[in-house]
């Protein structure tokens, strides 16, 4: 966050601004950069004066002149710089017309304008030939120059919205359809701007979209197409069905989630797998809700129970367990980057204690958020105020606040208009301006100093602090909204918190619904999880809306959210190792296995083997999920990807398997010590007079939460017979179970 120089954002733009090929399929609509246009909705250069904003910039954009890889780069190209995709028309007018001393545009003889000569490649141009002389782009640029390069007219109607037809479509593979893009202007008029819009497929392996808006389906799945025109972005929901028929009649709907997911299966022709077993369910729900394996007794009791609603009861019980606050405290600690490097040991204790207490009380999420955003006080004592010490600069606070609480990534807009979104720089600094009237002081009476040494106090002050001057000054205003009217001495952050936590806020409820859904289902309704924007639509928009609406109506009750997801039939579907379709899990036709996170895996190993971990400075048996921050040394946790809390992105936690993990589990001495521990589970089992069948049953129950199969019992028997000793055989079996994917993965 701190280190987000603008060039990263620009590199992103250059990568997505793929330059189009100069040829088009013959049946596609004509490309205005290369073909003359027909039709009566087009700007008619012969009857009205051309406008720089409404005609020239779309023409330059269509020809690719102002793309990130070309003159839209922040460095420009060949000494010529335009604003990225024409987001800054006055800048572009200045560059093209005013400061080029008549070289770039030459009204006296338009064809000699450098702009046209370079663009058509008639004099050498690093970017090659971008437009043909016969094209509509050429005609517009030529006419505009010939008409005498009229300056920007401030009273010109502004673009209000884009309308795409059709906006939802289902296509069979190799089927094509052309979109129609209509611009609605502030004077109430509308025009067809299809030839001037830009189109991008979010997944070109599923569907392609031509430069002129013709979508061609390739293979089954979901494939949103984004449409961009003059700073506005909107998305088209494109679905390519897997099959024409589906058999969902046996699927029982438990709650509204199931209805939405089922409707999508019917639309795309997919059939879900069956319900998961009780063993799978208790393991899955326990790991998901409290980050803890079920114990032997819990598993036995649950498997034996004949109560019809035992799954529902289990969910309710788990949500009241003390581990609930520990486990979700870990997740919130990652999200809020709770770390002593920012707030010292005492600040760490204070903030993480406050977070866990809030979770224990199930404090409504809007209240929790409000308490953080409006906090003042002592970093060592006043819990949530630590938020303002983890980031201090207004810009960083704006980025973190938008990303964590709204799921909106504003980083790009620190330096330029967001490449995929409507956000402008002014939105960024408007948000950051809420955090300028803050002051951090050392209490004089304590006489201490230094970031790590003493405590510090944050206060709201009535004027912007000179320490918090921003690169670009702005009035505080919420994203896309108006500036609050400040009362003297009123904490402006209250307005921000009001706006953010309002049930009508388009991001707050959706953001947390999406995160929690992803934590449980392995995949967000929007992916990446913390990247909500119009150009990144949800896979199940109606479900997303309803879940977000109900979450707000339920008073932002996190336990309600978890319970509702867990109680759905979709959550309780069986795991499928080899799904025929839907490999990415976009349609939730089965539960996708995923590796246990570092802390949960370590705790699970200790619980299964009945051993304890010794963390420096922590009491024996302290759980890994309860660790307050990652400074407590553990090579196991580092190997398995615990984040160091420097980045608020969900991606900071690495869940991927790798070589070091495999070596650790296969060949490390730590796992062997756990398996063979003198007071561990295996030692106790072998000392008792239990039969081999009883031992193998217990080992399967504590690792996989299920009974062994007949095959597995046979393999175990054979292993014991072949091994040099019974002790060694059992150690090898237990070791193997801890190395099985079924143990290491959540499923």
């Amino acid at each position, binding site marked *: 966050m701190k280190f987000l120089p603008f060039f990263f954002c620009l590199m992103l733009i250059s990568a997505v601004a793929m330059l189009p090929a100069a040829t088009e399929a013959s049946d596609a609509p004509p490309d205005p950069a290369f073909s003359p246009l027909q039709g009566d909705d087009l700007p008619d250069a012969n009857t009205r004066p051309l406008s720089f904003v409404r005609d020239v910039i779309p023409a330059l954009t269509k020809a690719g002149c102002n793309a990130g890889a070309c003159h839209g780069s922040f460095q420009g190209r060949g000494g010529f710089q335009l604003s990225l995709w024409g987001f800054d028309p006055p800048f572009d007018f200045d560059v093209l017309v005013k400061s080029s001393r008549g070289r770039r545009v030459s009204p006296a003889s338009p064809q000699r304008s450098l702009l046209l000569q370079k663009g058509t490649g008639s004099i050498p141009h690093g970017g090659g030939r971008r437009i043909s002389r016969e094209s509509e782009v050429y005609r517009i640029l030529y006419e505009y120059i010939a008409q005498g390069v009229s300056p920007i007219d401030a009273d010109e109607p502004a673009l209000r919205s884009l309308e795409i037809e059709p906006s939802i479509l289902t296509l069979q593979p190799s089927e094509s359809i052309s979109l129609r893009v209509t611009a609605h202007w502030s004077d109430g008029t509308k025009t067809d701007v299809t030839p001037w819009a830009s189109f991008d497929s979010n997944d070109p392996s599923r569907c392609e979209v031509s430069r002129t808006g013709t979508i061609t389906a390739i293979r089954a799945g979901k494939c949103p197409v984004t449409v961009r025109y003059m700073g506005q972005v909107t998305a088209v929901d494109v679905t390519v069905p897997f099959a024409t028929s589906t058999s969902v009649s046996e699927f029982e709907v438990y709650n509204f989630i199931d209805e939405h997911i089922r409707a999508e299966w019917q639309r795309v022709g997919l059939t879900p797998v069956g319900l998961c077993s009780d063993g799978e369910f208790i393991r899955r729900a326990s790991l998901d809700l409290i980050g803890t394996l079920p114990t032997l007794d819990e598993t036995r009791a649950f498997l034996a129970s004949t109560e019809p609603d035992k799954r529902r009861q289990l969910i309710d019980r788990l949500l009241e367990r003390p581990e609930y606050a520990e486990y979700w405290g870990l997740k919130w600690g990652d999200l809020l980057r709770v770390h002593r490097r920012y707030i010292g040991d005492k600040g760490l204790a204070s903030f993480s204690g406050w977070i866990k207490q809030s979770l224990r009380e199930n404090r409504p999420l809007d209240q929790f958020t409000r308490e953080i955003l409006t906090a003042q006080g002592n970093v060592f004592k006043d819990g949530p105020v630590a938020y303002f010490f983890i980031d201090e600069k207004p810009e960083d606070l704006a980025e973190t606040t938008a990303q964590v609480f709204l799921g909106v990534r504003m980083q790009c807009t620190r330096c330029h208009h967001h490449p995929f979104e409507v956000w402008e720089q002014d939105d960024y600094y408007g948000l950051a301006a809420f955090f300028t009237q803050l002051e951090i002081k050392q209490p004089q009476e304590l006489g201490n100093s230094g970031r790590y040494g003493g405590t510090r106090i944050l206060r709201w002050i009535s004027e912007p602090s000179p320490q918090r001057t921003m690169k670009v000054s702005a009035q505080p205003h919420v994203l896309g909204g108006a500036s609050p009217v400040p009362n003297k001495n009123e904490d402006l952050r209250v307005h921000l918190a009001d706006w953010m936590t309002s049930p009508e806020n388009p991001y707050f409820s959706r953001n947390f619904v999406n995160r929690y859904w992803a934590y449980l289902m392995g995949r967000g309704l929007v992916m990446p999880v913390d990247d909500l924007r119009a150009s990144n639509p949800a896979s199940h928009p109606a479900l997303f809306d309803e879940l977000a609406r109900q979450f707000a109506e339920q008073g932002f009750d996190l336990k309600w959210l978890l319970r509702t997801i867990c109680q759905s039939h979709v959550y309780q579907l069986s795991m499928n190792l080899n799904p025929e379709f839907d490999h990415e899990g976009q349609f939730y036709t089965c539960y996708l296995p995923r590796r246990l996170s570092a802390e949960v895996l370590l705790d699970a190993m200790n619980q299964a083997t009945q051993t304890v971990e010794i963390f420096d400075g922590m009491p024996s048996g302290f759980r890994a999920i309860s660790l307050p921050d990652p400074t407590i040394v553990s090579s196991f946790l580092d190997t398995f990807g615990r984040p160091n809390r420097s980045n608020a992105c969900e991606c900071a936690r690495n869940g991927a398997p*790798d070589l070091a993990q495999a070596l650790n589990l296969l060949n490390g001495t730590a796992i062997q010590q756990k398996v063979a521990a003198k007071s561990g589970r295996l030692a106790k089992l072998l000392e008792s007079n239990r039969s081999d069948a009883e031992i193998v049953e217990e080992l399967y129950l504590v690792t996989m939460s299920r009974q062994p199969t007949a095959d597995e019992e046979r393999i175990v028997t054979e292993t014991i017979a072949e091994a040099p000793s019974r002790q060694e055989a059992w150690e090898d079996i237990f070791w193997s179970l801890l190395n099985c994917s079924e143990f290491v993965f959540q499923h």
Partner: protein
Amino acid sequence: MFSLHSRRTNGSGMHRRAFLEVGSLPLMGLTLPTLFSRTAESQEHAQPTKELNCILLFTEGGLSNIDSLDMKPEAPVEYRGEFRPIATNVAGLDICEHLPHMAQSMDKVCLVRSIAHTESGDHAAACHYMLTGHPQRSDPTGQPTGSIIHPSFGSVVSKERGWRNGMPPYVASGGFVYEGAGYLGTSYNPLKLYGDPNAENFKIDNVSIPDSIGWDRTIRRRRILDRLDDWQRRVDTSSGALLARSQFYQQAYDVITSPASKQAFNIADEPAEIRERYGRTTEGQTALLARRLIEAGVRFVAVRSGGWDTHDNNFPRLKDSLLPALDKAWSGLLLDLEERGLMENTVVICMGEFGRTPRVNGAAGRDHYAPCNAIGISGAGVNMGTVIGATDAKCERVLGTPDSTMDFAATVYRLLKIDDSREYLSNDGRPIAINNGGKPIAEVLS
């Protein structure tokens, strides 16, 4: 155990690579397709550049440049310190009297004195500067903590080149402050060697088979696991994470049990005179191990030499242990590589994260100093027997325009034949160039 290379198509006949590119795993931040395509690519396009290797000899803590490779005998005594220069086999180049073996090997070194950066505070941030080229914010927790942490040279090699001969591409001795893969993800971290190759019974945690288990039992366990791990037998191409896991298990078994690996780690095999040549120190024997690993198929080995953070007692520490150990390890490595013909395709870099203050401090030590540094580069494509750049009379600044860490990184990538305009996706999906505007230092390149 399912092997990645044993099958090239999945059930529907789709080429594996095509499948992997489209079949991304739906987890936050998980990018298996990239993970696999690396292996696939390196298997499919054999290029001559594949065989280039690199050994990094890293003087962690910060080698005192003014006491070793950039001496200022004419400077006032509070600057020049206690040591005297001696002549080397390169005319006009003198180095410290406590580097006598290196004095006879400077014809095999391009000595660069022109590189400067601005992080004189924090070791981790300075390591990040020097081993990635990119700036990093300093942080007292001793880890790079910026929201973008860049991959070090070895991780880039790992990403670009992949496994060879059943050996991981990047191996590092344990204990580095930073030598990791940053945003590329843990798959490109080095295989870290915890263990002292100079010890009698040299074992590497997690890599050497523990004595308490032994070879036979390791093989037997693998068989039991193969039988019991029903999932791994059943899983096909569909579940990315499970598939990845079986690949890494396969690789782990290769590292633990492959003949190439076993032989490389068996340093006791090495003739006594060769072991002596490198010096019987941890860094000496680790440098020797590095050569053995390169021969076995590893592409980049980072050897850590610790203890260079001489804030106090600088002179005795340098004279008694640090410089003699470096002298033998470095010269032994260069000589050995030359005798074996490995200088043709190996780049050797000896460097620390910064130099040290030219003025001796009150504790007879020297502190961190990033404006001046001395780096030795040898091997394939290097203009050896030369000195590039110069510092002023008191070793306080580089004369003329210093080369930046980006320039240094560009130089390293040029030597390793890696296109430094390459962009990788950060873990939150932004394309980031591995180098940002650095130009290779022309004089270093032969």
